[in-house]
């Protein structure tokens, strides 16, 4: 299955998109900040694989011993995404898998004058919107339209988006 994941750093700065198929890497698109923060690792992973820690239990003379060791997962392996997700978490980053139907709204969010935190929070809310993706698409498209035509209603449309974001995050919190 084809999937797109978005990578954010600890300050919610967007770093790039990771396209995967059945867990294996298909393509990476890093922006300048992503290139700076993740670029050196990416080039290493291409040749050596992504590190992942595994655990095994070994029995020794009536005793059990837990053993943790690191392996490298090739980028084309089905375990790539899991390894990357764990690596990101350890480095304080967030990897958000985003449904294909949300991509258009996400691309719109990238163009809007939002802070990193707002863009990240909206992406989380958009992802959690389940059956309400259409409302997001519409609201983002309207805001992008206002931005392109320099329409003064942009400010109002951004406030609308922020309201949707708050509602979406609240819903997600309640579910949790």
């Amino acid at each position, binding site marked *: 299955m084809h999937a797109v994941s978005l990578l954010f750093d600890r300050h919610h700065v967007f770093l790039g998109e990771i396209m995967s198929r059945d867990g294996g890497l298909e393509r990476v698109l890093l922006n300048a900040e992503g290139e700076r923060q993740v670029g050196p690792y990416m080039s290493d992973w291409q040749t050596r694989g992504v590190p*992942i820690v595994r655990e095994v239990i070994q029995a020794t003379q009536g005793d059990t011993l837990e053993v943790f060791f690191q392996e490298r997962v090739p980028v084309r392996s089905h375990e790539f995404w899991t390894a990357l997700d764990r*690596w990101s978490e350890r480095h*304080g980053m967030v990897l958000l898998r985003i449904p294909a139907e949300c991509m258009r709204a996400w691309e719109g969010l990238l163009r809007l004058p939002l802070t990193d935190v707002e863009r990240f929070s909206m992406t989380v809310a958009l992802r959690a919107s389940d059956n309400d993706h259409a409302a997001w698409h519409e609201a983002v498209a309207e805001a992008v339209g206002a931005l392109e035509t320099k329409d003064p209603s942009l400010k109002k449309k951004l406030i609308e988006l922020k309201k949707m974001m708050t509602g979406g995050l609240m819903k997600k919190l309640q579910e949790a």
Partner: protein
Amino acid sequence: MKERFAEQQPPSPILNGERVGISGAAFSKYVSALEEPGKKKSHLHLVVGEWKAPHGKVPATTEAYVTARKVGGETKLELHAMHPEELDEDTLGGLLSEAVPRAMDMKTSPKARLALEAVMVERRREQVVKEIQLRVVDTGIRYICEQLIKEAVKGETHMKLPGSEVHDAGIELLRSIKTALRDGSHLALPELQRTAEKFAALWQTLAPKERDHMRRNLAHLTA
């Protein structure tokens, strides 16, 4: 450096920690960050042991692994690495981030992640200091580098770059120090070694007057 590691008596001690660049105090902070309030305190003992070839389900090509064994009320973790001094941050950080919480029956948290990161930053700093002490022969330049390390760790340095007459190699050295302190990837430390060696080679060719000029300019850049 060894004395600094030995003088501490932390609740979760580490034996031979200097081999992997981790102090007992830093490791204990990480263990404390994993503890939940109201729960019994954990006593973990981490040992950087001698290399023993892995067996069983652990692949023979594994270069580092951690074993966890519960002995009485204490959990003993043993780190075995073929070359402990050369372990990269991803390997060491990865093993500790999984083995320590599991040994404590705890889940990792943002607080614990930050504490582990602090362990890694301290380790990075030690490595950079070691490199500078090893490769920069001039005491004046070494002092400037050490000041830069101190300030960069506190996150206060604003290095004034180019536009100065100082030799490129000096600027490159200062830049790579800053990068190595910030960047835990496998590339930063070798890059520092490269620039430090280049600088050392250049230093040999300088006349006393030029050396003095270099010291003054580098000091000015980091002031």
